């Protein structure tokens, strides 16, 4: 399991290197190799997570290490889906470094030693709650990355600097389309995930909603994303403004995932999950 995790990390590092070479050199075969390596890394990672699940008997997201690792796994999964749908090679050059950074941060946290887990984690509801929310978050991560790409490209076109990035990045319309698609997938998933969580909470704790810090922050991020999607539909927000908003939303989401998970306590915090 540890070996598989490390192998996945090394493969992703290698793929990231390849994707960076690709964005500079623009050669198709470099992309193809990097993409294949990333998929191999993804397979190793999946097996490693599967082993952890088998050992724990529940989703391995009880501490920050496995949380980060599972998040990076979800992003690669969503990336592969989007790559099949949009066939946008340069996207990998942004996604791979991002997921590898997550993996490296996960690498520096210690492996969980304690064996016993709280029996309430042994539930199918919980598994769905976790997987759906993480996949939703992964879509938001892709929306975040394409928003960054959008802002870079938009800046270059607006300021008429038609250099390296201008030629390598795709058209604004393409980036906006991926951004919209990711939001439209991510938002329902996040909503369903929160909903399932509250049902499970009723079943496990007798309360739908406990105003736990994580719940509050999840609600805040949900509201921000709802606002963004509302503006997109009603006023036709698109392009630059939507990209900036998407970045802000993702920062709030990350805050609720990492900072709230570590510092704010509550039953969602990594501290109480591991206990």
């Amino acid at each position: 399991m540890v070996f598989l995790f490390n192998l996945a990390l090394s493969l992703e590092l290698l793929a990231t290197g390849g994707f960076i070479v690709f964005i500079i050199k623009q050669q198709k075969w470099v992309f193809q190799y990097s993409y294949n390596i990333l998929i191999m890394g993804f397979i190793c990672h999946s097996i490693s997570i599967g082993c952890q699940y088998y050992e724990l008997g529940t989703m391995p997201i009880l501490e920050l290490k496995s949380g980060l690792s599972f998040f990076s796994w979800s992003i690669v999964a969503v990336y592969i889906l989007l790559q099949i749908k949009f066939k946008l090679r340069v996207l990998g050059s942004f996604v791979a470094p991002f997921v590898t950074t997550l993996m490296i941060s996960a690498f520096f946290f210690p492996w969980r030693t304690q064996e016993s887990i709280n029996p309430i984690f042994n539930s199918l509801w919980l598994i769905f709650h976790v997987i759906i929310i993480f996949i939703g978050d992964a879509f938001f991560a892709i929306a975040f990355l394409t928003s960054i790409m959008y802002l870079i490209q938009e800046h270059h076109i607006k300021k008429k600097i038609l250099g390296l990035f201008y030629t390598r990045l795709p058209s604004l319309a393409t980036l906006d389309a991926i951004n919209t698609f990711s939001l439209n997938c991510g938002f329902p998933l996040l909503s369903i995930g929160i909903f399932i969580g509250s049902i499970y909470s009723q079943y496990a704790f007798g309360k739908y909603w406990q105003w736990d810090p994580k719940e509050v922050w999840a609600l805040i991020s949900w509201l921000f994303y709802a606002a963004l999607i509302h503006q997109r539909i009603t006023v036709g927000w698109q392009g630059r403004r939507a990209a900036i908003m998407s970045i802000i939303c993702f920062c709030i989401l990350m805050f609720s995932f990492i900072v709230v998970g570590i510092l704010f306590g509550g039953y969602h915090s990594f501290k109480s999950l591991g206990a």
Partner: protein
Amino acid sequence: MTTILNIGMNHETAPVEIRECLAAEPNNNKKALVFMRETDCIKESIFLSTCNRVEILCTTDDPSMAKKAILELMSKLGRLPIKDFISNLYTYNDMEAVHHFFSVASSLDSMIIGEPQILGQIKKAYAEATINKSSGVILNRLMHRTFHVAKKVRTETEICESAVSISYAAVELAKKIFYTLEGKKVLFIGTGEMAELAARHLMKQGISSIRIANRTFNNALKLAALFDGNAILFEEIDSQLSEVDIVLTSTASPQYIITYEQVKKNIRKRRNSPLFFIDIAVPRNVQPEVNNLENIYVYDIDDLKGIIRTNMAQRQQEAVKADRIVSQEVDKFEKWLKTLKVVPTIISLRRKADIIMQAEFQKSYSALKELSPAQMETINILTKSIVEKLLNDPILYLKDKADRKILGNYLDMTRNLFNLDKDEDEI
């Protein structure tokens, strides 16, 4: 000793009046090829004539005679006295000619470096030469190498990558904004020549509708008829701004036609969708501040020219790389050409071996006739492979020495060693 001779003129050496004289009649190419085929001193020939150049490529044993014949031919085709155009011609021999032709095909010698048409034109010229049976071993090989070099230059350098004309640059930019121009609506303000050129270019990209506004409504109608578009009044421009995706302005108006306020109030109606202004007018028709509005992009003629300048500079840089590829390929071709000289010796060597084999078979025939056909076949194969293996090294040795200056010595030695010349005299 066969020489490859290249005589020609291009956009740099000859004015258009002379170039067009030579391309005047459509069947000039055929006439030229037939003439050269029937001229004794010219062995193989290819005739290329485009609006930017005329090139004659031929092989000959007597370059000065061949040149005279070609000058006559050109004078006949163009109905010009030789003295009128002789100063516009360039003449290259052998590897210089090969180098020049490779460069032409790779579009390194074109008016716009990297333009893609020339290769197609050369392919056509070669096809004509094969139909008229004017090309042979050397030029066939040369042409195939030419296509190979041109392809290599195109794939290994970025010489054809970037836009070098205003409308092409504008289309490229539009594609970076909209991804595709299919289904986009375009508004033209002004009906000049540039507008027409750009319209032609945009139509090819599959835009869905064209609207044309002009102060003189009649001109708008004319252009609209040409592109199946709608002519609109100047006063309607404002309402169009909420619908179209691309606006191309090219009027001679001294004031701005599109102002910041005008575009700004349309943004909400457009639901923030991107709008691209291409302003090729001088003085400008679109207020520059419009570019500061969200999702609105304005490129004026200077911006577009700037793009073209950078792209041209980039092409020049790539041309250096391409030239290196051309030189390498010229070397390879030279090597091949030299192996041609050893071919007669290799043929006589093989022939001699063959004769010996046949003769020896005849001698032993009586002893061998008892054998079954399968056994005979085996002996046949056996002797042949012995001969092949024996000859293999001397042949490789000769081919290897093909580009040495003292190749003649090696050939002499081989001919003496195997007694080739005497044998051939006897036969």
